[in-house]
């Protein structure tokens, strides 16, 4: 299941953008509420509607055939009056003030009335009424003032230059917020994450606390404290393993030197054999403990070089056992892993194969793209198949013949687990055992 991750930066940007636009809108509305309408806004809207309603008859005398909106305006403003004049005649609505009819000019007194000349499609505010002889139609009107809310609605219905500009500015502000805020928030987080990534398994490396923003500082401090604890635990574990190795190996070595004094050759050979298998067990136990408890550093490595290296190391053992060992694979096969761990795992597989392949036998180590390495022997076989999912318990033996302790395979399984690789053990066609580590997953 994929976790849906919520971005703080995106939420913050959206919130900020929303708040800014709400604020600007409130400012805009407040501005309108404060200054209100002196009549010019409402009257411009009505004049526009009147212009749409004017029809000329054959004698070019004006007639009014009100549009729906004009009718709405007439209901909305009971005080509304207008006069539409052409050189041929005029038509009026409402209670037209006597001064207007007397042709005294619209600006005196200057309240709530306007005069617009119509030329073509244009509606122009006329400064002196009745003097505008260039106009085809003169519209004089008055008695209508918008409330603040109505101004806003009017602007929203028919945006003019100012409101378009305002909308553009708003859009730019919101876009900038959405783009800039995440960058501001995310950059320090990314930087901290990159620093944390760099630490990897470098010992003693810590996240820088000084340069961090205040919000990230507690996180960096906590992260560093966790690293401290892990490093202390790792160091303690390493010290413990070193001590255990020393305490186990020193008496074994002493015992080995004392066995040199045993006179009975048969007895000596038996005892040396027992001691060697005990030493082998100790070595493998320590390897397993180290693999399980120590952090493994992963690098880009060539599986061919690594596996050939592991094979070359086991050549003396193979030659001593009279086993013919061969390596197959030439083109580099790059994987992410720990060469040291893989060599430990492969060495155990190869030694197993040498042991089970028998004298005069053959062991083949083969690397195939995109990331498989197999150790093949042609001995009698282990009589077990392993599909890579079952847990390999230390000390579980394939065959109850007393050879091997089963620790080797537990080590290999641990190496596989460290790499997210799979381990499978099958019968070699024609007899024998093929153990495969598949890293390409």
């Amino acid at each position, binding site marked *: 299941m994929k976790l849906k991750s919520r971005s703080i930066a995106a939420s913050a940007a959206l919130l900020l953008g929303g708040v800014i636009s709400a604020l600007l809108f409130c400012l805009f509305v407040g501005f309108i509420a404060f200054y209100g309408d002196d009549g010019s806004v409402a009257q411009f809207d009505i004049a526009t509607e009147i212009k749409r309603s004017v029809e000329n008859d054959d004698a070019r005398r004006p007639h009014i055939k009100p549009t729906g909106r004009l009718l709405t305006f007439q209901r909305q403003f009971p005080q509304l009056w207008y006069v539409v004049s052409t050189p041929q005649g005029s038509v009026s609505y409402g209670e037209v003030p006597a001064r207007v009819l007397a042709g005294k000019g619209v600006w005196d007194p200057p309240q709530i009335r306007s005069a617009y000349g119509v030329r073509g499609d244009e509606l122009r505010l006329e400064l002196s009424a009745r003097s505008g002889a260039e106009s085809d139609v003169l519209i004089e009107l008055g008695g209508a003032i918008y409330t603040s809310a109505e101004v806003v609605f009017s602007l929203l219905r028919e945006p003019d230059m100012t409101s378009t500009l305002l909308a553009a500015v708003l859009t730019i502000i919101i876009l900038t917020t959405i783009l800039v805020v995440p960058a501001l928030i995310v950059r320090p987080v990314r930087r901290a994450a990159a620093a944390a990534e760099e630490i990897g398994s470098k010992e003693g490396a810590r996240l820088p606390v000084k340069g961090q923003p205040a919000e990230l500082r507690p996180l960096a401090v906590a992260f560093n404290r966790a690293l401290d604890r892990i490093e202390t635990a790792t160091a303690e574990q*390493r010290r413990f393993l070193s001590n255990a*190795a020393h305490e186990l190996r020193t008496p*074994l070595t*002493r015992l080995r030197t004392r066995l040199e004094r045993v006179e009975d050759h048969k007895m000596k050979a038996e005892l040396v054999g027992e001691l060697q298998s005990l030493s082998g067990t100790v070595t493998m136990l320590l390897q397993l403990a180290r693999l399980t408890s120590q952090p493994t550093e992963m690098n880009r490595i060539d599986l061919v070089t690594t596996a050939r290296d592991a094979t*070359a190391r086991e*050549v003396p053992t193979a030659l001593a056992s009279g086993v013919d060992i061969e390596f197959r694979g030439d083109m580099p096969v790059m994987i992410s892993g720990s060469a040291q761990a893989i060599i430990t795992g492969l060495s155990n597989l190869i030694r197993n194969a040498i042991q089970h392949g028998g004298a005069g036998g053959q062991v083949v180590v083969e690397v195939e793209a995109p990331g498989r390495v197999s150790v093949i022997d042609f001995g009698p076989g282990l009589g077990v198949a392993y599909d890579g999912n079952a847990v390999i318990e230390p000390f579980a033996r394939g065959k109850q013949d007393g050879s091997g302790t089963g620790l080797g395979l537990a080590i290999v399984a641990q190496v596989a687990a460290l790499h997210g690789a799979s381990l499978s053990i099958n019968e070699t066609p024609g007899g024998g055992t093929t153990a495969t580590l598949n890293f390409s997953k």
Partner: protein
Amino acid sequence: MRLLVIEDDADLGPWLRDALEKALGGADLVVTLDEARAALRVRPLDLVVMDRRLPDGDAVELISTMRRLSPRPSILVLTALDDPNDIAKALDAGADDYLAKPFEPVELIARAKAVLRRNQLDQKGISSVANLRFDTFARAAYIDDQPLILPRRELALLEALMRRAGQVVLRENLENAVYGFDDEIQSNAIDAHLSRLRKRLREHGCQAEIRPLRGIGYLMADLA
């Protein structure tokens, strides 16, 4: 041949001294870092076999002192600590080889001989396996002290193998040794050279053998 054993274990110390003396000649035993420093001042040594954990400290610090001596002794570190980091620390300091405890006596002698051989190669340019001897300064090979005349490429092959006698030499390292940058490498040419070289060694009664390891490389080994 002068050897020094630095080992504080009451059983292992004397046993090491006796075993090494029997195989290689004159060995002394010291049990602390202080005694070891004193012994190093007395006379030149060929080989130092040392344990790391001593009563008065980690013997790794002795290694850098020994590296500055002339002639420089070969250094074989015995360790009950098989942590790869510990081993790397000893090798980085300048030890020639390490041997994990417990070990078989034969293995100890073989490793001791191998580091001595390598040191001899570094200081005198001589590497020998059985009755085969290679002088890297003179670039000449001898079997039973009789000079062996070899063509250029076979001589280069033999040198690369003798420089790492007893160890696996990867095929690509052999190719690098035989061919220069400008040479065109034919993938099976090296096999032809090797088979001629092996035949020549056999004909001259050489007791050392070049063992092929398919897909890995070659190994110069003692037939015996």
